């Protein structure tokens, strides 16, 4: 019964919102769900593996580029786009893993940042393919067989299904032996070695799973955003993903969507109201860390527990 509650409730929520919300909201929600999925894939690494990757945007963004470039050549068929995005996210994650997972925690974080910068350099300078600083625009409409999926409603439903599917996968991952072992490496890496676990292979697999999810999200991103540019692989987006995760609550999975929504809503509303948006971003980071490092998810859970008790 409980195992069906999440998917059914999720589907119901998607259907209701799709019927009730207007185009602007639907596009905005689709963006939240897509970026939220990427943030959740980062939660697998940070929240469960203790692997602070400052290069996650490289996985998400390179999948977005791959899908956009493929769409320009072969048209934007949904399964092809998803396949390419997942393949790209996984492949980039594999290369990244070889680079960053050999080092200790502190180096890992810096190496991930550098790796992300390398991907950014490629996206920025390889103008013939990526459009350089201008990025890629004018993409064909996403389609599934005879149906065109370019309208806000279809994109929202698609993003909702992606988010729901990835949330389910992420939960099963965390509950599986692999996910448990990942938690083990976070808590007691030395003991895990003494139990015969190969830490590299374990973390590498987690990174591949995370990369595949980020890649799936990245594949849809250009079609919702109608644009993909070098900012989508830049390390500032990686840092932003981390703050979204922290705002939502590290290690909760669903909190990622909450944090993404909070951040993007602030960006939309505060950004329209001041030209010093960058200053506000910085303050948001600092205040989050100073005031609520536990995030919204754990705050809400605490409130719910209190309400149940009284």
């Amino acid at each position, binding site marked *: 019964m409980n195992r069906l509650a999440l998917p059914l409730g999720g589907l119901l929520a998607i259907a209701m919102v799709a019927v009730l919300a207007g185009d602007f909201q639907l596009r905005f929600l689709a963006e939240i769900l897509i970026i939220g999925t990427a943030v959740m894939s980062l939660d697998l690494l940070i929240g469960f593996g203790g692997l602070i990757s400052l290069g996650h945007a490289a996985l998400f963004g390179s999948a977005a580029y791959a899908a956009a470039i493929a769409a320009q050549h072969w048209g934007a068929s949904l399964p092809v786009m998803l396949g390419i995005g997942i393949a790209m996210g996984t492949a980039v994650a594999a290369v990244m893993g070889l680079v960053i997972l050999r080092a200790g925690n502190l180096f890992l974080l810096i190496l991930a940042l550098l790796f992300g910068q390398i991907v950014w350099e490629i996206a920025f300078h390889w103008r013939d393919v990526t459009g350089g600083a201008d990025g890629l625009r004018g993409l064909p409409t996403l389609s599934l067989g005879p149906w065109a999926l370019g309208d806000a409603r279809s994109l929202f439903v698609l993003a909702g299904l992606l988010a729901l599917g990835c949330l389910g996968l992420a939960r099963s991952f965390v509950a599986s032996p692999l996910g*448990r072992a990942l*938690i083990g490496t976070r808590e007691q890496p*030395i003991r895990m070695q003494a139990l015969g676990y190969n830490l590299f292979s374990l973390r590498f*697999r987690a990174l591949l*799973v995370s990369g595949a999810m980020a890649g799936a999200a990245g594949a849809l991103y250009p079609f919702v955003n109608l644009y993909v540019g070098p900012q989508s692989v830049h390390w500032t987006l990686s840092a932003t993903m981390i703050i979204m995760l922290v705002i939502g609550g590290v290690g909760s999975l669903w909190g990622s969507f909450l944090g993404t929504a909070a951040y993007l809503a602030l960006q939309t509303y505060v950004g329209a109201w001041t030209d010093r948006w960058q200053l506000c971003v910085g303050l948001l980071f600092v205040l989050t860390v100073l005031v609520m490092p536990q995030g919204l998810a754990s705050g809400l859970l605490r409130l719910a527990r209190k309400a149940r008790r009284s």
Partner: protein
Amino acid sequence: MTALLQVEGVGKKFGEFAAVSDVTLDLRAGETLGLIGPNGAGKTTLFNMITGFLKPDTGHVRFDGAAIDRLSPAQRVARGLVRSFQKPMLFPALSLRENIAMASRQHAGRGLSWLGSLRATRAANEESDRLLAESGLTHRAEARVADLAYGEQRMADLLIALALRPRLLLLDEPTAGLAPEEARRLLAIIRRHDAETSVMLITHEVEIAFAACDRIAMLNLGRLLCLDTPAAVQAHPAVRDAYLGALAA
């Protein structure tokens, strides 16, 4: 009888300080070997080198006749060489059963499975439950190990190691800080696995070494003073001077 573990001329220096120098010893299949010596004698350093956590500067380690010098700690575990640590090293946020299952899943070769992992999880939980029942901790299976009493944590640490079905189990001060009754229970569990598991045991408590071990190796200042039966070790003059004498005085 053939030796299960052979340590040949192993040494390690930290800077100028020789933590272990030129230690040669062997452990026969089926026996329990005690490793005693004062603080800083090099017992834990020797353990780290046998289990691959530390690279020796000199010498070789052979396990079951094969050189294992180039194997990682994890690869040594796969051959049946399992260790515990001086302080219990558990996964505090996980339940006691999950702590043990972490080991039994890895032993079953399913430690890294994801999709289709239900059966692996169930089998591992059964194995954990068997070990918990054997040690009288069944009622604590669901407790987070962070909430366990110290004695229970020590026992959990041992059960995690046993869940790997070791051929050789290296225990680093397994009874440290335990009440005599708890220590006796723990040793009884170890003894119950005697048939398939040989044991190398670091201990501070000389009485335990003499009672539980077939042979005893005495280290002092990184060197092996002697390796013999408990009775012979007890009578050894160098041992008396270095260690037992000080205790008696």
